[in-house]
């Protein structure tokens, strides 16, 4: 069977499965066994979602969350990427930072939230810093691994053709490490996403998707919760496919350098 035919069949089966799952959920929700507030029907969720989109609140929450993710992620890349590369190139840097990284990494980023709240208060700063903490490690480690994985043959060939330090770095090492760097970026994004939702639940003061979900619990608004979950899922999925997919396509896939294990 051709690849296209098999793909279309999988898609159909997936759609069928989802429809069946939705139908089962819907029938449980309507059965009356559970309070409508706890298990809202799908139309109720859709209604809540629509309402929040229309009055702009969903958009506002989403933009707060995205702002924090972007800022934290930006910091993580600005710090983690150069540091990781330096660790890969200069043994002294590696020897200094690797023990610190190994000790800090097993600590979940959210464990720091109460401390950060004390130091920086509730709100944006704390949230962004938690995102930064969570996202830096995958970025740093992947950049480090990437630089170390650059095939020495490429370095020798380039050197023989007269590449000096500067061009060697930009024209051989960076492109050579790019599969790892992109994976690091992808994992950093995932981690920031997870961290931001958690941080918002615990530390945000008024806005943000994580906060919405937590707040909705107080008022037993399961429909708002599910609607927000759907939004979170969509944004995450959208980013995955659109941003990272095309980034990969433009670089490593085009160069045939795909890594086998995906984050």
């Amino acid at each position, binding site marked *: 069977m051709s690849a296209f035919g098999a793909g279309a069949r999988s898609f159909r*089966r997936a759609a069928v499965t989802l429809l069946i799952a939705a139908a089962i959920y819907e029938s449980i929700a309507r059965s009356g066994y559970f309070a409508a507030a706890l298990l809202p029907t799908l139309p109720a969720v859709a209604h809540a979602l629509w309402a929040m989109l229309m009055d702009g609140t969903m958009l506002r929450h989403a933009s707060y969350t995205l702002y924090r993710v972007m800022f934290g992620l930006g910091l993580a890349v600005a710090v983690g990427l150069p540091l990781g590369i330096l660790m890969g190139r200069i043994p002294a840097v590696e020897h200094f930072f690797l023990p610190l990284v*190994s000790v800090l*990494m097993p600590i979940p*980023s*959210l464990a720091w939230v109460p401390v950060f709240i004390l130091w920086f208060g509730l709100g944006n700063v704390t949230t962004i810093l938690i995102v930064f903490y969570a996202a830096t490690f995958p970025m740093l480690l992947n950049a480090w691994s990437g630089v170390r994985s650059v095939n020495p043959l490429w370095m020798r060939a380039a050197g023989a053709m007269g590449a000096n330090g500067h061009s060697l770095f930009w024209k051989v090492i960076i492109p050579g490490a790019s599969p790892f760097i992109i994976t690091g970026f992808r994992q950093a994004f995932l981690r920031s*996403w997870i961290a931001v939702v958690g941080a918002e639940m615990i530390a945000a003061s008024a806005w943000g998707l994580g906060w919405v979900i937590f707040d909705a619990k107080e008022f037993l608004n399961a429909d708002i*919760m599910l609607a927000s979950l759907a939004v979170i899922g969509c944004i995450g999925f959208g980013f995955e496919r659109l941003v990272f997919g095309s980034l990969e396509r433009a670089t490593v896939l085009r160069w045939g350098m795909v890594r086998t294990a995906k984050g």
Partner: protein
Amino acid sequence: MHEDFPTASTRAPALPWLPAGLRDRANWWVVARTAFPFVVVGGLWEIVARMEVFHRRLFPPLEEVASALVRLTAAGILPHHAIETVARLLAGFGLAAAVGVVIGIAMGRSRRAEDIFLPLVSIGAPIPGLAYAPLFMLWFGLGNFSAVLLVAFVSAFPIIVNSWTGVKAVKEIWIRSAQAMGADDRRLFRLVILPGALPYVLTGLRLGLAQAWRILVAVEMLAAVPWGLGWLIFGAREFMNTDVMLAGIAVIGAIGLILENLVFKRLEEYTVVRWGMMTS
């Protein structure tokens, strides 16, 4: 690649708290070199703390953190919290492992299972686990049951995905060789597919454990359960007991490190590393 722990380069030192590193005679230099960054950071910390750049309660000197650690351990408080947390972790992760490996392997073996589970997994996976927490609390209430269920739910995803990938990655040539030598389906599964998929399954379990750990600490902070390290840290905030908080964080880090090294590394070394299927 293990995304949750640095793979040491051939030039990096064996970290001194790993058993293997200590066997080396000429280890003094390596130990000193590894301790050096901590000395530097610790020194900077002490300077900032003692200069009282920030309020002493907010930024305690290390000795206060250490004494809080000792104090709480002696009073039995810290061990109590730690045990609660670890117990929840083991319960949740155990559940996730048992269910996740079974589902993942089923997905790899049966097209039908794959068609059923893959869409559900793909949808659930990109949503951060913690986002489900309030939902679970709403549905199952506060308390241990809800927390364990959430941990199990969230950490199951990487386990399922990796087990599935692992089964599909079993080499065709092993299957053919075994079949040529008379292996029936059952024995093929037990003697070829399971060991063949092991590197991926272990990676999935490792990722699952890291996920479980992260989410458990966060759930405990949401005050969904009584007792627990996350709860301890969050609670200490009210009285600005930063020394207690940092002590708690240190314990969290230590447990994470132990789980990673003592449990997983050993497991891997006994199996997939020994068989040459994965580099250590």
